[in-house]
């Protein structure tokens, strides 16, 4: 029982980061029907910004806001440079564009920065733990879970209580009608990219703190986790994205811990098998968008 609880807490920490990533993916999908495979590039660019900052001798106190700012700016730049050109195009074109952005950013860092791992310091407290009964809880997981809860509350307030949130939800429900009602579509989309970039930035802070390094493909893994979690939760659903992220994190930790040693290497494979089974029984993910409020 203790081990199960320990796994659930560990999974919650991991899943919280996935939830933040999935939220960013869901926000963009909600307004543009774009499954953004360039979502991880915010973390790639932020990672190199962090590396540069550490080279200047800066501390995490400065690097954290830097990561957030760079992530938002990168997201807005990607929209401006790439996606703005294909507004209104079919979903497939948008998908290909997002792949293109991913490969261009990846190649630029690979060719013009370095193919090597760029290391930087992790904060000392990342691996600290404290005990609650027989449970050992990482300070890092506690911070991640806390920040995620606060972020979700703020995003929820933003969407429910502000004009921007109203416009975003209206655009997600019916983009053309929202435009006819006076919603400025470009502003809404730009805002969605900004919000998505901020969410990626918050997730990126934790991802980079844990990793202590960056590479040209640093954004690939977080992008895959975010997209996967968004799919599991139900594309376009905010609640679904959060649920999907938490479920994915917990599934990974539980399976790695519970699978027999002889097949423990198949953890990732079993996770995908479970996802496949989920889609057989619930093709729309946890929260079917057809019956739920989108974004």
């Amino acid at each position: 029982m203790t081990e199960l609880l320990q796994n659930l807490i560990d999974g919650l920490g991991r899943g919280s980061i996935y939830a933040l990533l999935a939220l960013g993916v869901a926000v963009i999908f909600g307004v543009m029907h774009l499954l953004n495979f360039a979502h991880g590039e915010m973390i790639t660019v932020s990672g190199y910004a962090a590396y540069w900052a550490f080279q200047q001798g800066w501390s995490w106190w400065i690097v954290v806001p830097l990561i957030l700012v760079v992530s938002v700016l990168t997201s807005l730049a990607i929209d401006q440079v790439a996606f703005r050109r294909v507004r209104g195009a079919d979903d497939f074109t948008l998908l290909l564009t997002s792949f293109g952005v991913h490969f261009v950013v990846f190649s630029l860092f690979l060719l013009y920065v370095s193919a090597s791992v760029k290391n930087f310091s992790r904060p000392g407290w990342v691996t600290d733990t404290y005990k609650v009964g027989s449970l050992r809880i990482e300070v890092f997981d506690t911070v991640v879970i806390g920040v995620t809860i606060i972020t979700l509350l703020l995003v929820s307030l933003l969407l429910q209580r502000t004009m921007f949130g109203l416009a975003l939800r209206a655009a997600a429900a019916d983009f053309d009608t929202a435009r006819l009602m006076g919603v400025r579509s470009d502003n809404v989309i730009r805002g969605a990219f900004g919000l998505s970039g901020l969410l990626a930035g918050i997730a990126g802070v934790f991802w980079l703190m844990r990793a202590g390094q960056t590479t040209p493909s640093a954004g690939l893994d977080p992008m895959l986790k975010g997209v996967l979690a968004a799919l599991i939760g139900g594309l376009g659903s905010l609640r679904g994205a959060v649920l999907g992220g938490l479920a994915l994190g917990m599934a990974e930790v539980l399976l790695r811990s519970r699978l027999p040693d002889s097949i423990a290497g198949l953890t990732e494979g079993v996770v995908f098998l479970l996802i496949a089974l989920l889609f057989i029984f619930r093709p729309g993910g946890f929260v079917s968008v057809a019956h739920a409020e989108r974004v």
Partner: protein
Amino acid sequence: MKSRPLLILLMALSLIAAACGSSDDASSDADSGASTESDTGSDSGGDDDAMEEGAHSGLDIDAILATDLANCVAAPSGDPIRVGMAMDFSDVVGFVDIPGSNLVPFVAEKINCNGGINGQPVEVRVAEVGDDAALAAQELLDWGAHFLIGPPFADFALPILQTTEGKVPLFVAASTEPTLADATINSFLVTFDDFGMAGAAAQWAIDEGITRAIVFTEGEGVPYTGVNPDAFIAKFEELGGEIVSVQSYVWAADTDFSAQVNEIAGLSENNEVVFSAALAFQVTALRGQLEGQGLDGLTYIGTDAMDATGIQVEDNNEGIAHTPHTSISAGDRIDTLLAEYEAAKGEALESRGFMALYVDSAFLGIQGILDCGCTDTEGIGAAVSAISGFEGLSGTITYAGTNGIPPKDVPINRITNGEDVLAATIGG
């Protein structure tokens, strides 16, 4: 909007920049860096050609390395020796193949500055494998490469071998993949293989008096990430050690080891050696999490991947051991060469511990040409297979009597007082 033209320009520059990375450019850059192209009719695929008059059977590496590029002798004018480099510039191994493909042309410059090899200039051509290693290899063969230096992993090295049909010597410079070595098809490792590397790590741990081990693997038999742990386990148990726990992880990705650490905490006596083929940042992340659980008495040893991914500059790296290909010390031959490169080209090469392997690959191929006195690639391959006691920058290399894996000593480096220093050498 005012920003639009700027963004369009940035996008255009991005696309141009991406296009600049094509294999054609890589090739031309390397050519210009190494020597001037000449059409003197070198024939790599034909019959044996007699070497030029006055050829000697050795290769004076020290003289080449000592060459001052500012004071060259008369340019060599004989038929060129052509070194083809089919290199993987992706993020998977670009961190070794990119600097390696910069250093070899620089060495060729030195050779040519020194009068060439018996009056023959050395030309180097780099072809990026992209997603088609066979095409890159064919380009190099069409160019007339006498031997090839290839990327370390099988997914690209095997298509190259299929293209050469095993008739052109291939040095998989940075590879420890045992299945890539096969002297009968002229495919050679330049360093120890996974079994030599992980076996040496096990030997070192036992020599340190550690008899319990925790091993991280991607799965039994998985190339590199599973084979190294397999080899470690086999050797460690053979030497009387006990494997306490085998944990799975995702190579180059996992940094959250919560599940594994909780399990280890229940098994560990805080005196084990932790072995994996993980990257440096993964090992230090794992260590931090284990220490967070109070396990601060563990010893960590890893493979050449740690060297390649910067264990020297990681936080919390004190005491971590690894198996580099070359234990570089200040002022030694490879250190001097790398310093000269930096001074000449204005940038330091990364993955320093691997660089000697690329230079040795070029020297071994040239040695094969000298030994056979021919330019026929199969003849060169046969001569390379017979090389014995070659004193390269990365150590002594012998292919005679092997299947293409040189029995080399394995250096064990350990971070001691913040410095990456040689802690032991395990005989190959």
